[in-house]
């Protein structure tokens, strides 16, 4: 039976226990936020100095400072060619990598919460196969200028079909979402394979393969605009859904009992996340593992609450993709690996470790 203690309702209940975890956890989140932000800035500035052309860090920074209008003293002894390499190739590429990494990690964290499935990733709703079909089709038609647009349209089409399919049978439950995404993915993947099988020849094979595995080699300023724009316009507002995502922890019914409009919230969050992913896919192909792994890694650092998970995942994703992409373009110079290979090579072992940690924790 209850001890009499619970009946002392009039007595002060503040225990002498020092204020607990709030301090601890917010402090930890703040620590990681500062650390990752510093790391992100340093990574951007440092990663531009890597590359086949022999460009020193000072040269690279001089070029950036000049173009940003901060220095004003011109590019000094930097030749136009070297200046071009930094400003037209490396810098946009690093920025695109950062934005895509942030967008994918954020999408992954949200997808995992909305579907309550730790294996969910940003491409869950058939996005990558939809984008692939669009991209492959235009590559084969020779219209490589429109790859981004076609990929985005393909992703949106796949998303719409998935949501309609998931919603057709009743409320959009996590299971239904995953199953509908699976069906759409399979269909679009089959269509992509069919198209490649019948028409691809010679160079287009490599181009397609690179796209399917995920690559940032096409990153230019328009790509930066798309990726950064999507993170700012769609990603930042999505972070405001943190509390709603928290309420899904014990399931849809529990969330509804806490005053959350579950079907509407799930629909809006899924659609916004998919648009974010669609924008990412359109500039980089489908880079695997970033959206799956990083949210798990961040959960191990600061716990599963989304108010810290979402921003930290985005920061960690940005740093992670900057460096994996730097490795992809420099490890086997002059050949370039699709960055998706590196993220998978790094991601798979990390994922195994995460799984083992989870097992220990539960």
């Amino acid at each position, binding site marked *: 039976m*209850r001890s009499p203690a619970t009946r002392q*309702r009039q007595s*002060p209940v*503040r225990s002498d226990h020092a204020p607990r*975890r*709030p301090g601890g956890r917010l402090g930890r989140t703040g620590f990681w936020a500062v650390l990752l932000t510093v790391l992100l800035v340093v990574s951007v500035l440092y990663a531009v100095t890597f590359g086949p052309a022999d460009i020193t860090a000072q040269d690279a920074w001089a070029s950036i400072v000049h173009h940003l209008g901060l220095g004003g003293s011109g590019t000094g002894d930097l030749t136009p060619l070297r200046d071009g390499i930094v400003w037209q190739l490396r810098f946009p590429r690093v920025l695109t990598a950062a934005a895509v990494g942030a967008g994918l990690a954020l999408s992954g964290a949200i997808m995992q919460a909305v579907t309550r499935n730790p294996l969910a990733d940003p491409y869950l709703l058939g996005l990558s196969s939809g984008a692939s079909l669009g991209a492959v089709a235009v590559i084969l038609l020779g219209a490589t200028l429109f790859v981004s647009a076609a990929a985005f349209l393909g992703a949106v089409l796949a998303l719409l079909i998935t949501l309609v399919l998931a919603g057709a049978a009743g409320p959009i439950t996590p299971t239904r979402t995953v199953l509908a995404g699976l069906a759409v993915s399979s269909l679009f993947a089959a269509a992509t394979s069919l198209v490649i099988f019948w028409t691809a020849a010679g160079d287009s094979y490599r181009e397609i393969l690179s796209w399917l595995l995920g690559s940032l080699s096409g990153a230019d300023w328009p790509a930066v605009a798309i990726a950064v724009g999507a993170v700012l316009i769609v990603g930042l507002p999505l972070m405001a859904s943190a509390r709603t995502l928290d309420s899904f922890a014990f399931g849809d019914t529990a969330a509804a*009992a*806490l*005053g959350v409009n579950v079907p509407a919230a799930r629909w809006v969050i899924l659609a916004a996340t998919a648009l974010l992913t669609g924008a990412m896919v359109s500039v980089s192909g489908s880079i695997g593992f970033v959206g799956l792994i990083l949210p798990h890694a961040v959960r191990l650092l600061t716990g599963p609450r989304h108010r810290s998970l979402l921003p930290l995942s985005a920061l960690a994703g940005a740093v992670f993709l900057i460096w994996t992409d730097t490795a992809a373009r420099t490890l086997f110079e002059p050949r370039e690996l699709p960055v998706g290979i590196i993220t998978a090579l790094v991601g798979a072992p990390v994922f195994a470790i995460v799984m083992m940690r989870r097992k220990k*924790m539960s």
Partner: protein
Amino acid sequence: MTASTLDTAAVDPASSGRLSLTRVLFRRDSALVIDGVSATIEPGTVTALIGPNGAGKTTLLHLIAKTLTAESGSIEYAGTDLLRMPRRRRAAIVALGEQDAFTDLALTVFDVVMLGRTPYRRGFADSDADHFAVVDTALSRLGMTDFADRLYGTLSGGERQRVNFARALAQQPQLLLLDEPTNHLDIRAQLETLALVRDLSESGITVVAALHDLNHAAAYADQVIVLAEGRVLTAGRTVEVLTPELIRGVYSVTADVVRHPRTGRPLIIYDAPASRGGVPDGADPDAAVPDAALTPAR
């Protein structure tokens, strides 16, 4: 902060209202699950919802919390329509304790209780710190203060149940709906949970709990509502409702209802159904079926 934070929110019994259900109807896949349920529940009481499996107990709780939507009928609390209320306002009045609340996430006890504050949180600027006092009070009320940093997943069934109660209390509800709160708990945790329910109702919270164990209802409930096939078979004061006739009628089980020697509450003593599970013929009852079949189970 003091306990009064919680108590001011947890309704002064005099000003709180009654819960009334009127001809509530709910269909699942065209089958009637709740078939015109009407009931009145007085504020600050414990009401046990009993009935065989599939009678609609869980569904009825979910209809009151509007985690399921009734097809017709009305549910009023203190004279206001609970079903047409904005969801956050409703969530600030009604808390639902589900059966076997489970999460995959590595949430701490504090995180879980903090979820109870969801209906009260406004916008991104709303800080966790604004809610610490209520969360702390809820934790200490359940004796879980020292568990705040523990992972929910590492707790025992009884401890989890306490955390779920604390989460519900953090919602500062006037009406607490519990779906089989003693499920999967050992006997000590069961009794502690039920004592807690009693305790909460004494502080003014109206509790409606779906219960399987009739002796739990007999010992702790002020009122019993008996559901069968989605209808109210009978409802009323516990002593008046829980009779051998009712138990035979609803569960096809023969039972005696005696007075508990110490508490004076009804105590139900079952006869094993003759058709199955009875004392086997020819077996030595003392050896084959120790005590259980011969003396009351509880």
